[in-house]
């Protein structure tokens, strides 16, 4: 008689319990040297439970099936010249920002979770982190494979990983990822799995991938949703680790709360780039940044923190400000990119009349009042040939590394939000109280920040002039500037023109 099939819980227990053991040749603290210095107290690692209970054989089976589906779509997309079905080639600016700014974070997450998969003392947590490390590598690889098709036809996609380590606006995601990776394992997982993946990742992937579907980008929709299916597991891990830390010892609460406050603000600032992608770079946007914020943060984040309040955890600090800023950030970030469009690895473009009508409708209290006049002024200048890009380099925030573009939205939306503090006789500048608080808690860490503007002035980025810096970034002249009149634009016109001729014939 065949052995009775074990149930899911039992199979998962066999995978994650008893795989580890109490070491005797070496002290446990020497085998796992990093999981205690942060002050998190764990009394019983066996209380760790992964709600998905995915066993290794099931993991390989389902991941293999996801890959087969994805690569079938990628093949067919390439064979059928899927790039010609985009709503407009200007949409690809969003994909260029994605492959240079987001894909390298996937790789950073892979490294981080591989590290945790070795260094957590509990075997259940190690197994979950090992699976996630493989997932993150898969995401990075599938994104590169998928987007490489666009690289055959469009500019600006040729060297994302090299650029991630150098380019001024890419230091925003890079510094976020490296801040987490240089923290201890519990802070890393709080940052990436909880603050980023659970609380905020829906804002990146759901509306953005839905936006890709809305703009005819079948390839991106497919890798995006394939990655998201893993992401649901990662989010669940994030929630689990928070509950686990809070249940293990009451002393963990203040530490977790501080990490939550810090990494919520870090991740939220990073998403300012996504806000611009969603409202401006997508030719057709299925949902505004503000709408996505209301659904995925205000509503779902609210439900989440209500659930966690039984442990004493409260909403992250400055979340009210983030909600107030939702009316402003996308416009502010896109303005900066447009005003420095000669130094971006993607094309910029002013919003069309149609886009501005949509923005007025989605942002009735702010767009017409504060931002439309700016875009219309620039449009007029471009028409008259008097438009000039910014010549100076912007002041950066020491923490989020975004130029000082955010404003006092709760009091005077036209006033730049500017904070300063002193440390070791030097002044440090910040875009917000959130970023300033982070610095003041760990100044020794953040005085070391690699700030692109400072680095240019110190002579570390190829030279003092813009062409030298851009060459050092490996930006080709055709990668930057206005979309209208670019090689990408010309190619698109050629295809669409050819398409028209075929229809006429």
């Amino acid at each position: 008689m065949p052995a009775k099939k074990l149930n899911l819980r039992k199979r998962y227990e066999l995978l994650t319990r008893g795989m580890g053991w109490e070491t005797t040749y070496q002290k446990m603290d020497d085998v796992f040297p990093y999981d205690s210095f942060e002050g998190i107290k764990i009394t019983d690692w066996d209380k760790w439970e992964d709600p998905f209970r995915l066993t290794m054989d099931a993991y390989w089976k389902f991941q293999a099936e996801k890959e087969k589906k994805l690569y079938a779509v990628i093949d067919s997309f390439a064979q059928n010249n899927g790039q010609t079905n985009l709503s407009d080639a200007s949409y690809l600016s969003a994909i260029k920002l994605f492959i240079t700014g987001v894909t390298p974070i996937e790789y950073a997450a892979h490294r981080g979770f591989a590290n945790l998969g070795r260094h957590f003392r509990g075997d259940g947590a190690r197994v979950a982190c090992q699976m996630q490390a493989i997932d993150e590598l898969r995401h990075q690889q599938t994104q590169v494979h998928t987007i490489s098709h666009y690289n055959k036809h469009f500019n600006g996609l040729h060297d994302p990983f090299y650029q991630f380590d150098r380019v001024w606006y890419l230091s925003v995601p890079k510094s976020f990822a490296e801040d987490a990776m240089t923290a201890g394992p519990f802070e890393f997982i709080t940052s990436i799995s909880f603050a980023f993946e659970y609380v905020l990742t829906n804002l990146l992937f759901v509306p953005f991938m839905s936006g890709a579907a809305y703009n005819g980008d079948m390839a991106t929709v497919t890798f995006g949703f394939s990655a998201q299916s893993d992401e649901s597991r990662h989010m669940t891990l994030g929630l689990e680790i928070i509950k686990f830390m809070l249940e293990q010892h009451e002393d963990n609460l203040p530490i977790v709360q501080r990490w939550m406050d810090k990494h919520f603000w870090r991740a939220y600032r990073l998403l300012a780039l996504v806000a611009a992608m969603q409202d401006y770079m997508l030719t057709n946007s299925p949902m505004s940044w503000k709408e996505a914020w209301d659904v995925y943060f205000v509503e779902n984040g609210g439900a989440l923190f209500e659930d966690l309040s039984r442990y004493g955890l409260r909403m992250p600090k400055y979340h009210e400000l983030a909600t107030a800023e939702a009316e402003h950030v996308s416009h502010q970030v896109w303005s900066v990119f447009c005003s420095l469009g000669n130094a971006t690895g993607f094309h910029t473009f002013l919003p069309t009349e149609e886009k501005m009508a949509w923005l007025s409708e989605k942002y009735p209290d702010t767009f017409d009042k504060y931002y439309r006049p700016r875009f219309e002024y620039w449009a007029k200048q471009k028409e008259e040939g008097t438009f000039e890009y910014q010549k100076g380099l912007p002041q950066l925030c020491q923490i989020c590394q975004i130029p000082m573009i955010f404003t006092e939205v709760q009091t005077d939306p036209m006033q730049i939000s500017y904070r300063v503090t002193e440390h070791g006789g030097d002044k440090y500048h910040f875009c917000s109280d959130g970023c300033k608080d982070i610095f003041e808690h760990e100044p020794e860490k953040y005085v070391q920040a690699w700030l692109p503007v400072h680095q240019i002035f110190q002579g570390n980025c190829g030279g003092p002039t813009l062409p030298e810096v851009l060459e050092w970034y490996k930006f080709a002249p055709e990668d930057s500037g206005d979309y209208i009149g670019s090689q990408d634009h010309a190619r698109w016109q050629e295809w669409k023109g050819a398409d028209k001729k075929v229809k006429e014939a």
Partner: protein
Amino acid sequence: MSDKKNTVFLIVQDNEDARPIIEAVEQDNSAVNIQYQPGLVRMEAPGRLIVNRETVEEEIGREWDVQELHLVLISLAGNVDEDEDKFELSWH
């Protein structure tokens, strides 16, 4: 937005594999609100949402492993409780 304080949701791809799951959710969760957005389907419910293996199996006429849900899953909100017979989301 206070009335939505305890919303749980399950988002799946808008494709053939997900359809029986969506139909099963519709049958077994009377309070569910189903929204079709480009490429995806968002199912939200107050407090609790369940996918039952049996209901999905009736829809497709074959055995269905609850973990096949992973193939179409995009996102979720709520505490997960999964076993052989169901996949459940809830806030405490």
